[in-house]
């Protein structure tokens, strides 16, 4: 094989270039000949190299001669070149699949893990030599990608100060918290591996909308405040990555005027290992693991992300889940594959999923004796998600209680049959659009699909069966299931994310 080299053209203030830098470091560490070309000045380039801890050579391109020779349009662009400077492959922007294929060209295994918190794909910025130039230097670029942050400061409380009152006033929301003493935080850090060499300054993610650094230590301090036991750190680290996954869009979820709050759904063996509860009262005050994990996520979002309920979090009515919103799936009473398997993980893999959810809306159905009867009741709750005439834009989590599951399963329904039934039987009668009053969802009706439900012409409520996420949870007595509506969905809103633990 001819000797190959990898050349990356980068800009110091391009978020995608900052995103890709650690992956290029991995290639450099594996003895891949990587070199970068910076389109910026000496100081900016030096600072970029320092912040992103780049471990490969970076040259500057002050007059864009190199950029023009490569005819680069977007940064970052990666070029795989042979020993005669022929370009064998080029990849613009950030793309995990492409990065793994480039790694393979150099004989390396994958370098981009699908669950490391970074998006699968992110477009880049316009090459500097093609930009419109102004004299305005603008604000300094946010440092969003360095892997090491700062140690947290330590506050000495005066003897006369009540620690609980101090923490309530200074760090919490409206619910008092456990003071994050140095000793308690150290126990959390030990459980996260910091007694075995892990750096407590390691940045796990930056929390939108203010992009506060969620270091292992800051996560630990917020976990203490929430009342978590140290073992919860193994869930909180991937959960913090998941909530900052661009697909989830925490920026929008945290700032919207809508009801949405991140609902955590826990699957796999971690449920037994850490005591997550999945049966009666699953949405409420039943288990320390559920309550404190949900609470810790909210405190992390609040204290590090900065969306306070009196400020950037603009929700008109809010959501009781903003204190804590965490359930586990009842996999024992679930005859089908659980949620994390639907989301592509192995059954014995522990996982957390996040969905930007409204509060649960109950569906009581004690008299139906068939799968069809139970599911029809649920379709009427699904039809009102967001607003009754608004179709195609929403999703929903349907939490099926064990008694309903038994009825549905007895009729031979597979999980995909349940989803398909709910999809094809949830619609809004066309007559509802004829009253002449303006209303939400009416202007978009030319994009809706007309179907027939029980002989009545209707518009189909959801885009696809996959818009309906099925989870089994709750106590074994009582025929009460629930529908949780979504916020704005898809690539333009918030998408469900599932991360392995």
């Amino acid at each position, binding site marked *: 094989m001819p000797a190959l080299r990898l050349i990356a053209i980068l800009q110091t203030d391009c978020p995608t270039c900052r995103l890709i830098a650690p992956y290029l470091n991995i290639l450099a560490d594996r003895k891949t000949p990587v070199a970068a070309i910076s389109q910026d000045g000496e100081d900016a380039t030096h600072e970029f190299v320092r912040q992103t801890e780049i471990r490969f050579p970076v040259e500057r391109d002050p007059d864009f001669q190199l950029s023009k020779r490569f005819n680069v349009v977007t940064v970052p662009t990666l070029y795989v070149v042979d020993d005669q400077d022929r370009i064998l492959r080029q990849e613009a922007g950030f793309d995990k699949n492409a990065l793994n294929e480039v790694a393979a060209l150099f004989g390396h295994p994958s370098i981009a893990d699908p669950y490391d918190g970074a998006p699968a794909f992110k477009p880049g910025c316009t090459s500097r030599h093609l930009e419109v130039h102004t004299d305005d230097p603008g604000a300094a670029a946010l440092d969003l990608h360095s892997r090491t942050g700062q140690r947290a400061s330590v*506050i000495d409380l005066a003897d006369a100060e009540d620690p609980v009152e101090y923490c309530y006033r200074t760090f919490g929301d409206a619910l008092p918290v456990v003071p994050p003493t140095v000793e308690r935080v150290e126990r959390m850090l030990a459980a996260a591996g910091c007694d075995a060499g892990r750096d407590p300054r390691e940045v796990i993610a930056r929390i939108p909308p203010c992009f506060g650094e969620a270091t292992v230590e800051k996560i630990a301090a917020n976990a203490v405040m929430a009342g978590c036991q140290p073992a919860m750190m193994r869930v909180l680290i991937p959960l913090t990555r998941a909530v900052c996954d661009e697909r989830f869009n925490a920026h929008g979820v945290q700032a919207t005027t809508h009801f949405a709050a991140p609902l955590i759904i826990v699957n796999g063996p971690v449920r037994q290992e850490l005591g997550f509860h999945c049966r009666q009262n699953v949405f409420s005050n039943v288990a320390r693991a559920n309550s404190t994990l949900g609470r810790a996520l909210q405190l992390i979002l609040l204290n590090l992300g900065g969306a306070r309920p009196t400020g950037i979090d603009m929700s008109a009515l809010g959501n009781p889940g903003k204190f804590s919103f965490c359930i586990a799936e009842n996999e024992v009473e679930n005859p089908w594959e659980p949620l994390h398997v639907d989301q592509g993980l192995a059954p014995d893999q522990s996982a957390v999923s996040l969905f930007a959810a409204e509060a649960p809306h109950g569906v009581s159905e004690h008299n139906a004796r068939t799968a069809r009867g139970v599911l029809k009741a649920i379709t009427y709750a699904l039809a009102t998600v967001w607003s009754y005439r608004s179709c195609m834009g929403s999703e929903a989590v349907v939490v099926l209680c064990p008694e309903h599951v038994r009825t549905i399963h007895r009729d031979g329904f597979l999980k995909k049959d349940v989803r398909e039934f709910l999809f094809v039987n949830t619609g809004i009668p066309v007559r509802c659009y004829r009253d002449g009053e303006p209303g939400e969802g009416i202007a978009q009706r030319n994009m809706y699909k007309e179907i027939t439900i029980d002989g009545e012409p209707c518009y189909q409520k959801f885009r696809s069966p996959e818009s309906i996420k099925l989870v089994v949870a709750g106590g074994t007595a009582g025929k009460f299931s629930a529908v949780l509506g979504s916020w704005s969905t898809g690539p333009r809103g918030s998408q469900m994310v599932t991360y392995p633990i």
Partner: protein
Amino acid sequence: MSMRIVNPLNETAPSAASAAPRLANLQGRTIALLDISKPGGNIFLDRIEQRLRTDHGVASVIREMKPTFAKPAPLGVIEKIRHVDAVIEGLAD
């Protein structure tokens, strides 16, 4: 005994940028109107554009749109309106 507490708040220094100088008037200026894709935003901004042109003598009006109100404006949109004298953003519906 005094208690020592680990600060759980974000301590990253925010990067500050000063606001652009205010415009004394709009005569001969280039104004960008940014629609964030909320329903009705175009109706509101159509009227603003009309008033800018007829009442305030602007040189030109540039219309740009975010693909979704649920996320920050992509760099491509910001790039297209970076050079104007002022931006009016139509928020909410």
